């Protein structure tokens, strides 16, 4: 299976474990990702809060480059925010021919809006992907209770994402279940993590993180699983801070769903950077792999 | 078609109104003493779907300058579905008339309920004005054929 690939700005830095685990899985199951040659930032929340045309044009340049490659592939996007921005552009260009032409003008390249934009949950939900992963997994995380956290932007707004459910999606739960881990029923799957407000409005935004972690914990999860570098960073980096500031004792490591898949395919901690997490993430995985007799 | 501008010319307008909605609305306009042009004359029919295309052709042939067909709002028909047939027949009829060179403004359909007296007044006033601007209809009339028919246009 092949896709054009738009990594996004965080994949080399704060999204490093996401990147490494995706690469590991690719090498195992023969998934081929063609990185868009000279991609640029998607504009994230910043662009669309200032300038609508810019918010549509920045992703358009990337999508147009993918088209220029001539591979005729859909574009895979790991980050939920990048995914949302790029999907907005595809939808806008397809719905409104004038807008598409306008975008071509702004980016100075042809853009036909042929390719679809897919997030990694959509990609791994495909039956053939699930089958391929299952064939390569020989370790199990049997019994590990996890809360799958989807965030806002893979599901909302539903006119753009076409998500099956905006309150209780199940795609990640089903993928993660392949590893033997047990996704718990919980209620904050699509609550907002605060995104960049964790930096620019920390006082207002920190409770968002705490609410998510608290609900996961209250519903007996041992870890939170994400599918976005920023969601992961926000939860991972702030959990310890919250414990320190409020005297709470949350103890949930935060993994990307691809990390669990990679570990079960045999990836070592170093291969995918388990130690790079802010909140200690090694021991829990280790414990469950051991329990399963590894 | 050349239009003779005669300031005193008054058009002849026929309005086929269904008994249950528009005719009642027209009565209510009277009860409320609303005013509208005298050149609109109402023919009462039980339902707008009673209006046979033949009636419309005859009206134009007899020198009528505009024809209105009015009934209950879609979904409100006293006979449940009659006005849906009216709507379909109207579309066909209007296209047929247009094909024959009759301005679509001369043949209009409107949905006016029994309580919409003001809408009745406004509708007939506007239609009357529009048709006044179009001038007399000559299509389908003896005179028009005797003067050479389409060849004259």
């Amino acid at each position: 299976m092949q896709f054009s690939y738009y990594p996004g700005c965080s994949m080399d830095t704060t999204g490093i474990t996401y990147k490494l685990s995706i690469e590991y899985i690719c090498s195992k199951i023969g998934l081929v990702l063609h990185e868009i040659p000279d991609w640029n930032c998607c504009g994230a929340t910043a662009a669309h809060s200032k300038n609508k045309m810019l918010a549509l044009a920045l992703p358009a340049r990337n999508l147009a480059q993918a088209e220029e490659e001539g591979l005729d592939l859909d574009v895979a996007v790991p980050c939920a925010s990048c995914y949302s921005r790029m999907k907005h552009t595809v939808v806008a260009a397809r719905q409104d021919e004038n807008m598409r032409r306008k975008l071509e003008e702004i980016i100075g390249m042809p853009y036909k809006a042929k390719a679809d934009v897919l997030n990694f949950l959509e990609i791994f939900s495909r039956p053939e992907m699930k089958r391929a992963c299952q064939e390569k997994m020989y370790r199990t995380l049997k019994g590990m209770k996890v809360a799958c956290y989807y965030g806002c932007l893979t599901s909302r707004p539903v006119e753009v994402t076409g998500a099956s459910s905006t309150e209780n999606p199940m795609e990640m739960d089903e993928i993660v279940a392949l590893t033997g881990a047990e996704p718990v029923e919980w209620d904050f799957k699509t609550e907002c993590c605060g995104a960049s407000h964790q930096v620019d409005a920390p006082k207002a935004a920190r409770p968002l993180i705490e609410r998510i972690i608290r609900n996961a914990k209250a519903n007996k999860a041992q870890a939170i699983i994400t599918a976005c570098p920023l969601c992961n960073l926000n939860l991972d980096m702030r959990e310890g801070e919250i414990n320190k500031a409020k005297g709470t004792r949350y103890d949930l490591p935060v993994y990307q769903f691809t990390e669990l898949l990679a570990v079960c395919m045999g990836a070592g901690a170093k291969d995918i950077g388990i130690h790079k997490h802010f909140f200690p993430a090694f021991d829990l995985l280790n414990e469950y792999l051991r329990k399963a007799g590894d | 078609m050349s239009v003779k501008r005669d300031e005193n010319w008054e058009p002849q307008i026929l309005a086929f109104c269904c008994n249950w909605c528009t005719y009642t609305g027209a009565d209510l306009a009277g009860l409320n003493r609303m005013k509208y042009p005298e050149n609109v004359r109402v023919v009462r029919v039980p339902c707008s779907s009673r209006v046979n295309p033949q009636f419309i052709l005859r009206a134009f042939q007899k020198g009528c300058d505009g024809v209105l067909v009015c009934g209950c709002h879609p979904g409100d028909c006293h006979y449940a579905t009659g006005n849906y047939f009216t709507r379909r027949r109207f579309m066909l009829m209007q296209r047929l008339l247009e094909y024959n060179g009759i301005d679509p403004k001369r043949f209009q359909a409107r949905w006016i309920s029994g309580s919409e007296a003001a809408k009745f007044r406004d509708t007939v006033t506007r239609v009357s004005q529009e048709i006044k601007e179009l001038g007399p209809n000559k299509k389908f009339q003896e005179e028009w054929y005797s003067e050479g028919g389409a060849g004259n246009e």
Partner: protein
Amino acid sequence: MDRCLNNRENAKALAARIAKDAGVDLQDCYQCGKCSGGCPMAGDMDLMPRQIIQYMRLGLMGDVLRSKSIWLCAACHTCVDRCPHDINLPGLIEGARMEAKRRGMIGVKEVDKFTDIFLENVKMFGKNQEVVLEGLYNVTTGHLMQDMVNVPHMLKHKIVGPELNTTKQAAEVKELMLRAQAAENERKRGEQ
């Protein structure tokens, strides 16, 4: 403060313009409060999301433009997703924020600064540089020590480093941004 509701045509016209751009009919709202009830940021907002609509309807635009709420919205779209009338509240807030910015009324300076620096960053490098972003943000807002505790971990695990990862044709992106600005201005003029 007395809020006399008469003679607010100008403010109502502004509200109507913002609503039109967001595809919203302000009269759809019956103030049920489901938006505010589910808003993750409502705890720190001075105007509830529901109230923003009522203020706009009455032409009390000053209160809206001055509010912190329009800057605190995280654009998570939870409100519109649950709204019985499908009112695009994030769209209204976005419009109000742009208008407030144009008038220099900035309810939460940090939020505005962050987005400005973010976009400057993109203009300069084509891609966002997290180190540069965080550094400049701390310096310009005066929150010098914010998040510095996490830096050692990041350096140790090479999560961030001194090297920059830029778009090769960064100049192209910069030009794109200028053209987009022009297009945006033109779009706005078209509305008015």
